């Protein structure tokens, strides 16, 4: 009886070592197929001010950093890239101007994101030894899709049904229900339901398939996070009785689809702090969580028998 081992990770958010570990994870974990469940781009640009005396300075993670020269800045860049952030070096006057010109600042941000993604795809094309599926998440702009599509080793599975082995199909969805940040791929539950129905209709056997949906099913234990007050920026956790109010932030449409179709496996992400496994009927749903900020690859290995289907899982944290 042949078996297949999947390595699923998600929400790498621009972290260089996490992406590199993911690509190398095929060999390391003896996985046959690699799947990345979305949110591949970073969230933050660290601006480094080039001072008039040739030195540099930056504020990063609440601490001020001073650099004597460009070489020091390049070393600093490695730390910044580890956390998933992007470095942008400019004079004080340019940074002041960007603070007033949001359009220009956004363009720089987007360019940095796409540049890193191109580097990542080059890395995968060079080092990948197994098939890799990478779909975008709700945080990712549309610009990432063509870059992934241009890869020789990485497949964007969002708009297609892929076979992870000789029998098991997988459909993918990077979108999520509306978040307080109103991200590029945030949709209403009605829209999500429609889109999922369309994807499911493409499957030959939904019962033995994999639902690679970035957004977890609501109230599944894979979606527990603080409830946020979206009227302030950045959104803040709502406190009650001295504690943070927790709730299930997942999608009702995703849950309904899983309850109705009972696929073999649900692979999810989106809520970084909600690493867990849950069963909805016969469906095993997993969210490996994310610690991209620490350069840690959180993933899950799933063993599947060609005949019997899902066999076992194992969280990894490398």
């Amino acid at each position, binding site marked *: 009886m042949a078996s297949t081992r999947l390595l699923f990770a998600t929400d790498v958010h621009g972290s260089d070592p996490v992406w590199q*570990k993911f690509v190398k994870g095929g060999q390391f974990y003896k996985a046959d197929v690699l799947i990345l469940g979305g949110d591949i781009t970073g*969230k933050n640009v660290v601006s480094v001010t080039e001072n008039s005396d040739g030195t540099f300075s930056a504020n990063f993670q609440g601490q001020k950093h001073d650099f004597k020269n460009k070489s020091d800045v390049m070393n600093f860049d490695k730390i910044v890239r580890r956390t998933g952030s992007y470095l942008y070096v400019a004079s004080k006057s340019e940074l002041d101007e960007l603070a007033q010109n949001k359009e220009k600042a*956004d363009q720089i941000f987007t360019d940095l994101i796409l540049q890193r993604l191109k580097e990542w795809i080059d890395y995968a094309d060079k080092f990948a030894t197994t098939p890799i599926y990478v779909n975008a998440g709700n*945080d990712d702009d549309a610009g990432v899709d063509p870059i992934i599509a241009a890869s020789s080793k990485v497949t964007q599975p969002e708009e297609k049904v892929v076979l992870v082995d000789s029998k098991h199909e997988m459909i993918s969805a990077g979108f999520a229900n509306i978040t307080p940040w109103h991200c590029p791929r945030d949709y209403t539950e009605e829209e999500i339901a429609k889109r999922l129905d369309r994807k499911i209709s493409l499957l030959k056997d939904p019962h033995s398939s994999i639902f690679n949906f970035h957004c977890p099913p609501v*109230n599944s234990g894979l979606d527990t996070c*603080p409830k946020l007050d979206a009227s302030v920026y950045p959104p803040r956790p709502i406190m009650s009785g001295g504690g943070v109010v927790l709730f299930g932030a997942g999608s009702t449409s995703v849950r309904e689809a899983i309850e109705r179709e009972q696929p073999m496996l649900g692979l999810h992400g989106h809520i970084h702090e909600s690493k867990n*496994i849950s069963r909805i009927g016969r469906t095993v749903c997993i969210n490996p969580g994310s610690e991209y900020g*620490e350069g840690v690859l959180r993933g899950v290995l799933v063993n599947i028998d060609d005949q019997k289907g899902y066999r076992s899982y194992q969280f*990894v944290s490398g």
Partner: protein
Amino acid sequence: MSKDKPVFSRASSGLVREISPHQAFIYNFMAIGFYGFTWATLFSVGYTGAFLGANIGLAIVLMAISAVPFYLSTAMLASAMPRAGGDYVWQSRTLHPALAFASTFSAWTVWQWYFASFLGTVIFTLGLQPLFALLGMQTGNASYQTIAADLAIGYSQYDNNYVFLATTLVIILGFAVAALGIKFYVRLQYLLFAGSGISAFTVLGVLASTSHSQFISRFNAFMTPLITSTNATQATVVANAGGYYNYIISTAALSSPSFSLWATFLLFGIIWISFGYAFWSIYNLSEIKRAGNLSSQSFMQVGSSLSFAFFLLALWYLIQNVIGIDFLRSFFTLYANFDPSTNPLAFFYTPYYPALVASISSSPLIWGIILVGLTFGLFQVILIVYFASTRIMLASSIDRVLPEKISYVNDRTHSPLVALIISAIGCEAFLYLIVYQYTFTSYFSTAGLATQIAYILISVTAIVFPFRKKDIFEASPASKYKLGSLPILSIVGFLSLIVNLFIAYIFIFGPPLGFLSVYSASSIEFVIGIFVACLLIYFIAYGVRKGQKIDLTLSFKEVPPE
């Protein structure tokens, strides 16, 4: 939208790290605990013959200083690996996953069940029994007197059905609170913290507003009617001695010992049992803001431990100067003599310092604030045990070392029900042994050694971390600090190792530490046996998982990125 928005920003979801360093500081302060049996023991046993010549104040100062290397080690490790799971993650990645599982599961799960059940009994013997005794004496209410008498059989928990049943209720109550989820717990925690804090500061307030001579006269006034009503002959003897305070001192007839630095150091064994928990925030590292910042970590851990040392010093200063060392030494030396024919104490409650301080006040409100607040503090520790032990079980289950069912989380309350049930059963089993099989409790007499194994392994992790996890260390803020070419992390780890080995030595070879009063050499083998059993669980799980095509070691290995 605020105008504080950064130059570069974009819409991206996800929110992690919501606990501020300030909140983590308080959490660690609370983990040490305003109340625990530790402080009652310290201010009683610390003055007795077992620690002849010890200076408690100096011991607190030396302990606080000696703890700095350990807390600097954990602060540096936390800033280098600011990840959920704390020392379990550090040890598993740096030493070996089997060692990490065995040390955390035995120290922070199995043995915490023992501490929780023991503290459950103390809620009654140390808190509520004296309260009912005081109320019964003042009001003459027979019900209060009966409750006090029932809870005080033999002035201990042994063979006491009432203590067993009442503590069982506490264990069930703790389970219910934990099962209701973190939201309810957080609310209750504030209440418990406020109650125990008010109680502790009331103790300080009562002592600070009482002179030494006032204490003596109030204490004598409190005791006189009690002695007169129970033993007329003794009442005459006491009166001739100039009151019960002097009577205790003259009866004990102890000579004044000269100062002993060695006995002072031996008190580390008592202090560290509670003082060693100011790093407890590491189990929430993935939720703490600026967790990778060394200054923040130092503030949370070193800061909270040093702050607590100041509180403890204030308590010691007042107890020593208001109550008096000679009296305390005599009092507890006599109390430790369990032979009723030679024990002249007329006390009708467990005479530890909270009840002693309460009784010099004539206000039932003060009694209630001090003694009920004390039970709040003890109950809080029981809840912390529930949360910490289940968190480790959950992590081990998710890592596939323990069965999958243990990681079941209730959808509505988000609480790990199966792990909580196991913890409740574990606590109840220990309670049964403590109350009814107390000869068996000799096996628990070096329970502190179990946690020392974990402290020692954390120290070893700190020593080798810069060399075995070079990349992570070099990227961490701790890498900036070196003595020559030697990382400060390794140096403080080494110092911490020496301190923790010394404390382990106290647990093995030192005098009985009060609540670990039934000394037995076999308890060392028992503690090591539990540790070895946990190692076996790991290796059995390794074999079982292998059959399921799961290689447990993969859970803990880091993929080389380059």
